[in-house]
């Protein structure tokens, strides 16, 4: 089996990302500090977790992703004090909250009467801005969208949680309310579809 070697030929490869290079141990230490209210440690966690969170939410919530992300952090904050789990547990908890916020978002979108102007329009990011933002963030967000844009919604969600939440099958099953087997099947279908989608570029 050939090893995976990142190749510098991706359309998504762009400079400008902040390289934090936090190891797993460093993240655990940051979590330990954060649970005590250490602001610097919390900032490290934020830098590690907010980008994938934002990418997940941008896919679902688009123009209000930043707002929902802040909402997720604020919902997480009370539970962070004295948090006893690992960094992976915290990440899973964060995506659990995020997933539920997304469900709320979709529910609200479905129930919100169309054509009624939002009286706080100032606070609503415009679609164009988000699109521009996506263009500017093509490095990561473009990759996210490229991964899931051709997938059915259920498969896309599982891929997003696998890729961005770095969650295991059982964790995803718990979050999305399905059996692990169903998640596994959906994941395989997604992978097969992705394999088909990207086959062409592999064989060029």
């Amino acid at each position, binding site marked *: 089996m050939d090893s995976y070697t990142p190749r510098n030929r991706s359309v998504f490869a762009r400079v400008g990302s902040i390289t934090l290079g936090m190891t797993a141990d460093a993240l655990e230490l940051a979590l330990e500090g954060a649970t005590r209210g250490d602001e610097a440690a*919390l900032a490290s966690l934020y830098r590690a977790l907010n*980008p994938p969170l934002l990418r997940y939410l941008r896919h679902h919530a688009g123009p209000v992703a930043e*707002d929902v992300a802040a909402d997720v952090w*604020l919902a997480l*904050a009370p539970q962070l004090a004295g948090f006893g789990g690992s960094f992976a547990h915290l990440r899973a908890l*964060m995506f659990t909250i995020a997933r539920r916020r997304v469900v709320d978002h979709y529910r*609200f979108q479905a*129930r919100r009467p169309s054509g009624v102007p939002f009286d706080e*329009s100032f606070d609503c990011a415009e679609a164009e801005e988000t699109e521009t933002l996506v263009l500017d963030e093509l490095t990561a967000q473009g990759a996210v969208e490229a991964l899931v844009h051709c997938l059915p919604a259920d498969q896309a969600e599982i891929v997003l949680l696998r890729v*961005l939440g770095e969650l295991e099958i059982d964790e995803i099953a718990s979050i999305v309310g399905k059996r692990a087997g169903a998640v596994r099947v959906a994941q395989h279908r997604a992978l097969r579809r992705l394999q088909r989608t990207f086959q062409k570029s592999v064989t060029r």
Partner: protein
Amino acid sequence: MTFGDDFPGEMEEFPFDDTTADEVFGTSHGADPAPEEFWDIAELVQAARRTGSAGELVGEDVIVARIVAAMGEHAARPQGGAHERIVALNRFRTAKVTAAATAVLLLGGTAAAAASGSLPTPVNHRHAALAVVQTVAAPRHHAMHAPGASGVVASVNGVATPGTCGASTLAGTFTLTHDADVFTVNVDATTTTFSEMGVTAPTFANVCVGSKVRAEGAVVGTTVTATMVKIKPLHVRTGAMGTVASVNGVSAPGSCGGAGLPGTFTITDHDGKTFTVNVDPTTTFADQGVASPTFLNVCVGEFVAAKGTFVDPIVTATQVFIAPKHDEKKHDEKKHGDQGRHMGAFGTVASVNGVSDAGTCGITTGAIGSFAITGHDGTTFTVDVTGTTMFEVPGVTDPTFANVCVGEKVGAKGALTDTTVAATDVFVLGSDGGHHGHHGHGDDGDHHGGSGQPAPQFSSGHRGGNRHGGNGGKGNDN
């Protein structure tokens, strides 16, 4: 998967196992390298997991401070501090999200459980809902009515000239307009805090005529004495992204740009809006896996992002990014060679034997003929049927070509040549088949209209629905 195998035993059909999935999707910790055929996917996964960019960390200091404060308040007042805590937290929450949360809370406690991530199981939802309603609902509702005003700055210190801004060290006044309302906002260099995303230390000088701002503070009549002024960054749109609809005026699937430049193509974004992208010899192209991509690599049906100068709806592109293709046909040709291809088309029957009148159906005997179907993207396919073509219709014992009628949703399986299907099987899903038209492989039961959208349900219970893009149903999940 093939048309009929999305039931027991389907796992055996996958050409890879859990280990492969873990190698591709799994975390970087301890994962084995992905097999070569998954390199591109793994590459995208790694790209998606890139460390944060500056744009993704904007406001870090503020929100981290708020989280710390919230943690402290939570620890100090685990029972009684909720109201104050939420009031503080709501400083981050825009009115839109707050409205969403409040609406959800008003509409039912179930959704309210989502406000807490600590109780993920359905068993605990009831408790979560109770707790959240008690601690979150009222403050969120109050936050919707936080005093202040938002709108576009009409004048600064009495001057309405576009571009006029305040002075950083002085008190002053500006007016806001929002629909027909006009508010006067008083600011003070010492008591008013200014906030603008991406600006380190904004001041009144950042408030200019034409700016979009929100002023928070005591409101008396139409006058706001601002303690906080949030300035919305001015974004300059630089491009568009979407699916290529035509290239140099040609919209036939697979049509690509030419070697000569300048040229033009159109893209349709996720909202259905069409943009024109102009390219010239200075435009650079990026296409995954292509060493020196050119306009030739821009083809109808591909997903691209064009960046450059944007004057709605035209992008004069300096850069064009071409996303990996979703090219099932070519892949299938490669995968299966010249034999055994399971391809076909899905869509709505537009005409039968050349007749497009509503209700026109095929003939029962001597069932050689053809019908046209229109896919979800507007592509028209011709489906040729013969005496050996098998028909399947829910509830019909011996279906024939006569069961194929104009207006019905059908799936046709067979060799696909350009846009013509030599049908071996035709599945009639009815006029409300509940799936989106789709062309390409006939081997998936899980296609759909795109991610992030509610999956349409195929309600007939007929297996053909799930097998042919009905998406929804148990066929996807189990």
